[in-house]
Structure formats: structure tokens, C-alpha cells
């Protein structure tokens, strides 16, 4: 705690540091301790059953020398980049639309949010059934173009995974953007209208720049979140066909719990943490450092 001699200089809330204690304890117990444990396990050999033996860098060598790691990293990157590129524009457009005052907006909003209510496993099972080339939607309705080996062709499967992931998370990000758009002062639009700006112009010149921080928040969530995608992909493709959709989290699970290699699995976990931290920091930097500065004129 800060000393009593300078009670108010450290800015607001400085003396209320103890309020953070419960959260801190929680974070320590459920994030820091396991993290240290995983770091330690990454220098051991353990099959999950017998004794844990310290083996130095063996596990790191086993993972880094394996071409499977680069492949999983690449797949993870593809899922991250493509699902970001797919989700962001759609989420912004939907968010802007939902923040408006059109007719039927409320009804449509409810419809858009349905995917958010479903569990990933349920979504995966449903899509798997719908996309089945023999019993799925295409075969059932006799629509030839829908009868593809959606989850059996490497490129198609990756595309489907990205589509389904996006389908699931676009509602959430739309919600963020909807909130962001509503924060923009109406006065700016009124001023622009007086200057003769059209809707499209207003979108590019006011809405989008004003959403900068929302975009950064949403992108951080997407990018870091996509590092840990697991359930949906596991149920839908199990990483297949072959290893076409084997993202890092799936690789970690397979090594740890199917192949009984806890050491290498921990190595991948450490890599995931590091990559996640780096990405989050990078995005913060792109965002111009201090997120708490207000962009709102006069607000």
C-alpha cells in the first residue's frame, strides 16, 4: 500500500488498492500458479501416470524439432487472420445497423444474437450434421452445390471452420460495435449533415474513426481468443482431415491427453501464452498506447 504521506497524489483509487485483492488472489491461484506449473512441466517428462522426471530441454527439442509445430502455428495463424478479416467488417456493419433506429431492428437484433446463446459443441454438432455429404442439407434437399466433402477436403474444412467460428462470434462483436456506435455524439453527425456529408461519407469519416478503440478491443478478443479455439474444431473435424485443421490448442490436447506426453504439451502451452501476450501487446501498441484517453470531442 502507498504511504499515508501522499494520500491523493497517486491519482484516484490509489488508496483503494485493497479492492483489487480478491481479483488478485483469484488471478494468482487460477492463472499465475498454473502458469508456473506448466512452465515447470515443460522441462520434464511425464506421462500423466508415473513419476515426473526433470529432463531439461528434451520436451522443447521434441516439439521444436517436429514439423508438426510449424504446421499447427500456420493453421492457427490462418484461422486467426481469416476469421478476423471475415468477422470485423461484418460485425461493424451489423453493429452500426443495430445501433440505428430502423424498423424491425429489435426483431432482427434478437435473430442475430441467437448463435451467441448456443454452446460451441452444439453448434459444431449441428454444422457437422448439416454439412454431411451423405445425410446433410445438400443430400436432403437435393441441392448439388451443397453436396461437397465440406469437412473432408483440407482447404474446404479450414474454410468451414473459419466460417462457423465467425458465425458464432459475429453477434458478440456486433454487440461491442453497437455499444461503440451509440457512444458517438450525435452532434458530430449533425455537424456533418450541415456540411452536406452523405451517409457513406459519415460512416467513413465519423463512425469508423470513432470506433477505433472498439475495433482494437474487438480485434484483441478475436485474435487472442482464436489462439485457444478448441471445442468447436475438436467436435467438428478433430483436427482433420489429416492435420489440416489442427490448431495449436488441439495439438496440445492431442499430445497431452491422447499421446500421454505432458512435457511437450506443456511446451505448446507455454508457446501459446507467449504468442498470446505478444499479440495483445502488439495490438495495444497499434492502438496508440493509452486506451483510457477519450476520443470524444467535448465529452
Amino acid at each position, binding site marked *: 500500500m502507498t504511504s499515508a504521506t501522499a494520500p491523493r497524489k497517486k491519482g484516484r483509487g490509489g488508496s483503494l488498492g485493497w479492492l483489487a485483492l480478491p481479483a488478485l488472489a483469484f488471478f494468482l491461484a487460477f492463472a499465475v500458479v498454473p502458469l508456473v506449473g506448466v512452465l515447470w512441466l515443460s522441462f520434464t517428462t511425464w506421462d500423466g501416470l*508415473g513419476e515426473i522426471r526433470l529432463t531439461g530441454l528434451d520436451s522443447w527439442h521434441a516439439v521444436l524439432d517436429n514439423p508438426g509445430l510449424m504446421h499447427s502455428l500456420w493453421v492457427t495463424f490462418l484461422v486467426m487472420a481469416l476469421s478476423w478479416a471475415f468477422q470485423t467488417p461484418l460485425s461493424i456493419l451489423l453493429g452500426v445497423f443495430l445501433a440505428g433506429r430502423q424498423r424491425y431492428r429489435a426483431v432482427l437484433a434478437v435473430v442475430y444474437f441467437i448463435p451467441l446463446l448456443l454452446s460451441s459443441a452444439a453448434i459444431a454438432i449441428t454444422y457437422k450434421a448439416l454439412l454431411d*455429404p451423405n445425410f446433410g442439407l445438400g443430400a436432403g434437399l437435393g441441392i448439388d452445390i451443397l453436396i461437397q466433402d*465440406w469437412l473432408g477436403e*483440407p482447404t474446404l474444412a479450414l474454410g468451414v471452420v473459419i466460417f462457423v467460428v465467425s458465425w458464432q462470434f459475429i453477434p458478440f462483436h456486433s454487440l461491442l460495435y453497437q455499444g461503440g456506435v451509440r457512444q458517438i455524439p450525435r452532434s458530430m453527425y449533425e455537424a456533418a449533415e450541415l456540411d452536406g456529408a452523405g451517409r457513406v461519407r459519415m460512416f467513413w469519416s465519423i463512425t469508423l474513426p470513432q470506433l477505433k478503440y472498439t475495433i482494437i478491443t474487438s480485434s484483441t478478443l478475436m485474435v487472442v481468443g482464436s489462439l485457444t479455439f478448441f471445442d468447436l474444431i475438436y467436435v467438428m473435424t478433430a483436427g*482433420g482431415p489429416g492435420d489440416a485443421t489442427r490448431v495449436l490448442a488441439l495439438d496440445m490436447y*492431442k499430445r497431452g491427453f491422447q*499421446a500421454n506426453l505432458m512435457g511437450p504439451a506443456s511446451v505448446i502451452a507455454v508457446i501459446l501464452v507467449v504468442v498470446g501476450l505478444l499479440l495483445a501487446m502488439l495490438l495495444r501498441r497499434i492502438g496508440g498506447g493509452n486506451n483510457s484517453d477519450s476520443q470524444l470531442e467535448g465529452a
Partner: protein
Amino acid sequence: MGLPLGAALAACGTSGPSRPGAEASSSGGAAGAATATYWYLSVQPQEGVRTRAMERFNKANPSGTLKGTTFANDAFKTKIKTAIGAGQAPTLIWGWGGGGLRSYVQAGQVEDLTSWFEENAAVKDKLFPSSFGAATIDGKIYAMPCETMQPIVLYYDKRAFEKINAKPPESWADIMALVPKFNAAGIAPFSLGGQSRWTNMMWLEFLFDRLGGPEVFQAVFDEQKDAWSNPIAIDALTKMQELIKADGFIKGFSSITADSNADQALLYTGKAAMMLHGGWCYGSMKADGGDFVSGGHLGYMNFPPIEGGKGDPSNTVGNPGQYMSISSKATPEEKEIAKKFFATELVSETSAKEWVATGAVPVIKGADKEFATSEDKDFLGFVYNTAVNAKAFAQSWDQALSPTAAEVLLDNIAKLFQLSITPQEFATNMNAVIGK
């Protein structure tokens, strides 16, 4: 899920009368009634057989009962491993023997039952000798074979064969000749749940065996260097890819899972003509397939021989049984209960009858006399004869190998079926994990 019933009944048995009946055992410190724990799989109809066997045992032995908990297949595999690793294993450890059992043995987590079987030769004699292979690690028995024998069977749809006016294959050449005929008729030659990967593996198991006998895989199991590069192995892998390239399997097989029984559905809905699958499919196809089984449309046979192959055509592969071990961390009282369960209800005639009623062949000798009254007697007799007459009944590869090697194997099999690696690359990748 299926837990409440079994657990509640077990609880009824323990609370009351057990204390007086426990006749002050040597370790007086162990307070409370003796209860051994038992985890098992929750899929019906097998779950019911397991639960009822436990209930009968508890009724007969109120002084030392079993308390059951059920899990779904995949959940069980992870959960039991974690529990054993954490030193909190149930008294009875249910499994598939082989490589998984070996990892428990190496960690010192399961009881050596060799001397118990010597003392209880009558129990051992009730079981098929072939079922003990996967329970034996380095010459010692660590598990009790139980439940059912499940050889892999070549199922076929008689209607599909009538449609193209052909006979079931009697050789590999017949299979390759049937492929274009079925494709021309708009029927997929073979159904396959390729996403599950072990489904593909069953094909390789038979190709290896028919071409070179069980010795080829035995060399891998015995950790011989470069055992996968055996020319017979390469030949088998090449034949496998030839069948895939000839469109032998249903379109989209690599996204079909066996867990959802979609592969069986392809067979009984007439979309595919044949399917290589475990003996357990009979029961589910009978339940889900409408009149497919009851109407006599289902045919079955052992995998045909391959021209010039050295393997005995009577050989089969699959699960020679399921296996139950006793946790070495259990208390002496719990171990006693477990052994009593092994010697009584697990091999009882009632249990054997109940397994037969599910359309499966129990590992108990003489179970065939229960078949006569069953409406599935033809299939049961076929499975029984396949299992008993087999010169070699090899255990599934993924069960025989260590979990580490099995995962690499399944991974490479998936790639082989995707045609993304050649037989030589497959052999190289697999040689690297021999003995791991």
C-alpha cells in the same frame, strides 16, 4: 448420467448391515463399511449388463459392496488416466488391456494378479486363453479378461449385391473388381468413418495379417528396428492406397465419425455396400437399421484372403476382451471385494446370458450353449466361431501400442488415407516411434 440408479442401489446395500458382517478385519483402523469403487462405460445395452452384474453382487455380498459410476467412452479414457495419475483411481480399473495397461503397470498403479489366478485356476479356466494375451505384461497377468470378444467383421448389404448381381468377395482381387461395379451402380463400395481414424486402422490390420500373418505387426510390438519397412508392410500400405484411389470408400469418408454411427447408417440405408467394423455394430444396426437386420439383409463374413498372402485366412483382429484391473492404491478390503467380484458375478452364468442377449459373445467358455434360444444365433455363432477358430486373434494396434505410439500411428493412418503421405513415408514416420 446413468449414475444415479447404480449408485443409489449400491448405497442402499452399504449403509446398514455391513458393519456387523465385516467380522473385525485385521486393519481395525479402516472405519466404516467396505466399499470398492467401479467405473464403467455408459452406453446401452452394455451399461445395463454391467450395472445389473454389480447389483447382483451387492445383493449377495452386503458386507462388501461395489459402488459404480458411469462415463461416456471418450470422457472415461481421459478421466481414468487423470484419476490414476492423481492416485485417486477407482478400485476396479476397466480398460482394453495392451499398451494402456502397460503404462499403468510401469507406473506401478495396478495389482499383479498372476498368483491370484494360480490360486483360482477355476476362474482362469472359465475364460478363453486367447483373451489373456492383452492382459499379460512381461509374463505377468495384470488384468482379468471380461465382458465380450469383439472381432472385426466384414459386413455387407445383401440387397446391394443383388442389385449388381454379384457375390460377396472371396479375395482381394474380388474386392478390387467389385469397386467399379458398385460405383457404376451409384452405391459406394465401402462405408468408412474415417475421422475416427481407428476405423481406417482396422483395414491395415487385416491387410498386414492376410499378406504376412501376425508376425509383421508382432515385430513392431517387439520393438524391432525398422519393423514398418518390412516389404510386406509396404505392400499392404500400397494396396490400401490403391483401394482408396479406386474410390473404394464412400465420398467424404474422412469427415465421417464412427462415434455417431454414421458409417453404419450408410450401410443400412443402402448408400454403401460393405463395411469393415467391430462385432459390436450388429447390435446397433439391429436397433437403428429398421428391418435391415431383422429382414435378413445384413450379411457378414471374415475378411477374405489376399492372393499370394502368407497369413492364415482364419485369423482375425479386434478386441479379444475387455479388461479389469485392481488399483494397487486400493485398501486390502477393497481389493478383496474386487477379487470376489472377479471370481463370482463377473464370470457368472447370468452375466454370460445377459451379454449374449446384447448380441455379443462373452469371453466365458461354453457361452455358445446360450445362443440356441437367441434370435441372433446365426450372428453369435459366426462371431464365436471366428474368435475360437482363429489361428491368431490379434489385438487392435492402437490398444496394443503405448498411447504415445498409438497417437502417432493414428495420425499417420489418417494421412495415408488422405493420400498425403506415401507408404514409404508412413513407414519412416512410424519407425521413428517404435518402442516409444
